Structures are given as structure tokens and as C-alpha cells.
């Protein structure tokens, strides 16, 4: 029973939503709009689930004194402080805004900024023209990287000032994005879409049941 009910619900709603896409009838549209409202109500429950999981994970770490368990205390401190200020007083509260602007925002931005340093280091170590394919990747990366910034065209225009060809680096970058990149991406999108369709049919028909958990 515990497994049959979700399977039946999944089948009924899956078929109903497919049906609403192909029928402009008023009843069909009413069903569609009603289900959308339900989804809007059900959706936020994921936040509760996420919060409970976060608390469980970090409580276990603190209890077992796993490596760097002290950071879990920081997680709880951040969570409790922001909830205690944000929920009763709202996100426009001056203390909430101060914490956001002076703690969360700079930390978040700093973490992302560090990527520039690691990318530079990784590019120096990893980009080697060992094979033909690696050389092709290397050349493409250099063209796109230089075409993505004005200094690429500036260098080209300075060196090739005697010729009528200008801004060729950014043009080459655009050509790479518009042609080989676009073709490859489209292939990936088509493949993924077909996969999603087949997986959806399997879920609606109850063939794929892993979303219920516990194997089977």
C-alpha cells in the first residue's frame, strides 16, 4: 500500500498533465491551473525537508566529533541568527540587511573570486599539447579566451595594422561559439531531451521506481 498509492498518484497526474497539454477544452485548462496551484503549495515543503536534513547532518557531525566538527557549530550559529532575525522582522530589517551585506555577501563573493587563482594555476598545469585533440582544445581555448576580452582584438589590430582585417580574434571566438559549439550543444540537448522523455514515461508507467527509495 505504501508503494502502490504513490505509483497510482504518479500515473494519474502524469497522464492528466500530458492530456492538458494537448486539449484546449475548458475542463482540461481548469485541471492544469488547479494542479499548478497545488504545486505552488507543495513546493515550499522542500525547504522544510532541506532544513531538517541540514540539521540532522550537522547534529550527527557534532555528536560523533568527526573531522572539523567545529564548523558545524558555525552552520548552526548562522542558521539560528538569520532565522531569529529574518522570520519575525523580515528581510528588510536593518540587522538582517547588515548581516547580509557585511557577512554573507563578501564571503560568497570571495569564495567565487578565488576561482580565478585556481583556474590560472590549473590552466598552467593541465593545458598541454600532448595529442592532436589536446592541441585542438588548447588552440580553441586560447582563441575563445582572447576573443572574450578587448585586449585580444587590440593585440591583433596592432600587429595587423597594415592589413584591412580588424577585430579578427573576437570574430573567431564568435564563429567557434556559433558553429562547433552550437552543433555540439544541440546534439547534447537532443540527447538529454530524449532521455528525459523516456525516463518520464518509465516513471509515469511505474517501471522506474527509484524515486520511492529503498531499492525495488
Amino acid at each position, binding site marked *: 500500500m505504501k508503494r502502490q498509492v504513490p505509483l497510482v498518484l504518479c500515473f494519474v497526474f502524469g497522464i492528466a498533465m500530458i492530456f492538458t497539454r494537448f486539449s484546449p477544452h475548458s475542463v482540461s485548462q481548469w485541471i492544469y*491551473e488547479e494542479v*499548478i*496551484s497545488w*504545486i*505552488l503549495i507543495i*513546493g*515550499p515543503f*522542500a*525547504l522544510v525537508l532541506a532544513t531538517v536534513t541540514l540539521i540532522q547532518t550537522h547534529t550527527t557531525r557534532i555528536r560523533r566529533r568527526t573531522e572539523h566538527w567545529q564548523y558545524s557549530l558555525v552552520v548552526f550559529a548562522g542558521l539560528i541568527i538569520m532565522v531569529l532575525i529574518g522570520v519575525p522582522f*523580515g*528581510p*528588510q530589517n536593518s540587522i*538582517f*540587511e547588515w548581516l*547580509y*551585506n557585511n557577512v*554573507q*555577501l*563578501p564571503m*560568497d*563573493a570571495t*569564495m*567565487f*573570486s578565488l576561482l*580565478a*587563482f585556481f*583556474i*590560472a*594555476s590549473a*590552466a*598552467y*598545469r593541465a*593545458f*598541454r*599539447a600532448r595529442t592532436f585533440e589536446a592541441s585542438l582544445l*588548447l588552440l580553441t*581555448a*586560447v582563441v575563445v*579566451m*582572447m576573443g*572574450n*576580452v*578587448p*585586449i*585580444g*582584438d*587590440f593585440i591583433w589590430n596592432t600587429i595587423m595594422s597594415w592589413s584591412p582585417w580588424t*577585430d579578427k580574434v*573576437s570574430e573567431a571566438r*564568435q564563429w567557434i*561559439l*556559433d558553429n562547433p*559549439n*552550437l552543433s555540439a*550543444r*544541440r546534439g547534447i*540537448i537532443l540527447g538529454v531531451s530524449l532521455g528525459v522523455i523516456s525516463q518520464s514515461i518509465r516513471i509515469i508507467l511505474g517501471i522506474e521506481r527509484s524515486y520511492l527509495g529503498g531499492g525495488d
Partner: protein
Amino acid sequence: MNMDRRIVFILVALAVIIPMLLSVNLPVSVSEPTQKFYDYVESLPAGSTIMIGFDYGPSSLAELNPMAKALLKQCFDKDIRVIGMTLVVDAPTLVSALIQEVAAEKGAVEGEDYVFLGYRPGEIQVMLGIGTDIASVYDTDYNGTAISEIPMMQNITNYDQIDLLVDFASSDTVESWIIYANVQYNQKIAAGVTGVIIAQMFPYLQTGQLVGLLSGILGAAEYENLVGAPAKGMQWINVESFVHLLIVVLVIVGNITYFIHRSREA
């Protein structure tokens, strides 16, 4: 030969700091996707409505805030009404500040020229909900004012009254907007995205599902140029130029040393 990575880090820091101190100003040409974006907004008559999804958090604001700012300036200059919203939980505070800053500069009035709806959870649910009735998703704006009491929202119910949807994104929200707002409701969409996801967007640009596209800091700089308001985008693309140049030089040096090492071994 392997250079100590701390040296690489110092070189990157210098490539950022020196051009910033010297205020380098390289010429920026405008790419076709950016021009299309600008032209589409320019073609909208005064009184049109643009919905902007500010779908990024603090980690991507350096790339996306400048382009969002340039678009807001263009909208307020042209008397285009702006509906702001976000699907990212940690975005509302920074977005609210950004809109208010530009509105104050351009003399735009909240509730008449613009409204910021804030955040609602559930990406797809929100996109589909806006298609039926905005008020079913956002009963109030970010300040808590009921949607029914906001003057500019009186005649706006769903996508039918929105002339363009712009998504500034650092993740896959653009693709979701295309699937649920463009395909399902025929909503015109333009996007501004971070450099790392730009390659994913080109198939949609070619099919016309995106009417225009801004690519990272370069897109922001190009758009600032078009709007005639050079700001952070222009400043940062010059800095980024030198970091990219440094990376290319490092790759070349790395390959030269690799080939020297290989020939010695052989």
C-alpha cells in the same frame, strides 16, 4: 618544470591590481547577440513592460550586476515599466538595493515605474504560476504591498501583458524560462549570463528563443557602451583582459617547458 602555484597566484593578483590602478581603457566592440538585445529593448514603445529575473546571488554579482544596472537605466530612460523578481533565495536584498539605486538616479517611482516582487521558492512552479496569474504566486511585493494595490500592476495579470522577459542568471534558469515561459506561453526572452555558461545559450539564440544575449563581463561592458553609461563593466573587462592574457602566457610557457622536458627525456 613546475612553477610554484603561489607564484601563479601572485601574478594573477598583480594582473588584477596593476590595470585597476593604471585605469587602462581598451576599446570594446559590440557583438551581435548584445546588439540584438539592445535593439529589441530600444524597439519597445514607452509604457511597455519588462519582467527581469535577477537569478543570481552574491557570488556572481560582479558579472551580472553591471549588465542589470545598464538595462535598468535604459528601461527607466525609455519609460519602460520594470517588474523585478528572483528565483534565488539569497538575491532579494542585493537586487532590491540595485533597483533602488538606479531608480533614485533616474527618478523612477516605485509602484508606477517599477516593482520588485522578491523571491518565491520552486523555480518551475513560479514560472508556470506567472503564466496563469502573477498574483497567485506573488500576492504581495517585496515590501509587503498587496499586488492589487500597486498601480502599475492593475493591468498586468500574466505573461500576456509582459513584452519581454529578461533573465540575468548564473545557473540553468534561462533554460527553464525558455521551456516554461517561451515554449508554453510564447513569451519573448532575452538573457544575460555569466561567462561560464555562455556556451550553453547559443542554440537558443540561433532558434530565436532568445532575442538577445549578454555574455558575462564582456556583455556588460558592451551594453554599458550601447546605453552610453560606462561603469563597472567597462572597468572590469579591462582588468579581465590582463588576467586572460596572463593565463594564455602561462599556458604557452607551460607548453614550452613541457616540450623541452620531453625532448631531453627522448
